[in-house]
């Protein structure tokens, strides 16, 4: 078997340190009480952390195009689910129950 790409030890340590730092950042943002921005900010930090895990710990950065497309397809279907659900909820006509 040909040699696979081996991610250096240092890179793993840096990624882990970044993940810990971002976890602290999540809590700091929570303590700042950002109001309506709290949700999006927390989600954005989580997305950055998820990207780090995917690219380095799960080796997706050095994986072949096929596996990246497979992961991307999952993400697209998830976005479809979220998108159409959001459309459904936001376009509902509010009406009071007669019960």
């Amino acid at each position, binding site marked *: *078997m*040909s*040699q*696979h790409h*081996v*991610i250096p*030890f240092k890179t*793993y*340590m840096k*990624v*882990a340190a970044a*993940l*810990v730092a971002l*976890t602290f950042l*999540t*809590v700091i943002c*929570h303590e700042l009480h950002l109001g309506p921005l*709290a*949700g999006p900010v*927390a*989600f954005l*930090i*989580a997305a950055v*952390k*998820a990207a780090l*895990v*995917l690219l*380095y*710990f*799960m*080796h997706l950065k050095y*994986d*072949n195009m*096929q*596996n990246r497309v*497979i*992961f991307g*397809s*999952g*993400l697209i*279907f*998830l976005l479809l*689910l*979220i998108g159409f*659900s*959001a459309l459904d*909820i936001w376009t509902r006509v509010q009406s009071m129950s007669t019960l």
Partner: protein
Amino acid sequence: MTTNVSHGEHHHSHHFDSAEHEYSSDKEGLWLFMVTEILMFGGLFVAYAIFHSIYPEMFSEGASHLDWRMGFINTLVLITSSLTMALGIFYNQQNQPKKAFWNLIATILLGCCFLVIKYLEYSGKFHHGIYPGRFLDMAVVNPVHQNLGLYFGLYFCMTGLHGIHVVIGMSLIGWVAVRTYKGHFNSHYYTPVEGVGIFWHIVDLIWIFLFPLLYLVG
């Protein structure tokens, strides 16, 4: 097949052209499996998003019942376990099975640590009458919002399904740890460790989203 091979050397199955072919097919299958995992949890996340947009105050009340410090510590535990898991693969790639073995054992212990904290949280919730859905004890909890059980339905389903994944992941890591100890893996063949690693990291990845959504934003 070829003769004169040393003990423990891996041979690719006969239906693959080469070891590289086998490795890439295994990983393709794993990523397809990861997509099903993402979509399974994705459904729960969408349910969370919908009900959160309809009942934002009720979700804040639900989150106020959770201790974010517990979720915070568990996030750090899982991130550390992801690092040790990655190192378990790294040392197998470096032909250092002993170091790989101990990193895998550390990963299992951190998984135990996560479950112990989760157990403390769950038992605390049950003690205060907090159960999912209609089982929530209204007399004991006395919630401001009458549908608080909905939040805890999502809480217990999401963290419960995640917890089952942690248990399965720990068992799989135990399996590859034993095989690492027996010297089944080397820089040319470590596919099972790589696959179990990807599964363990997706468990960590899901928790990365669960922590802020359930404990902080509410």
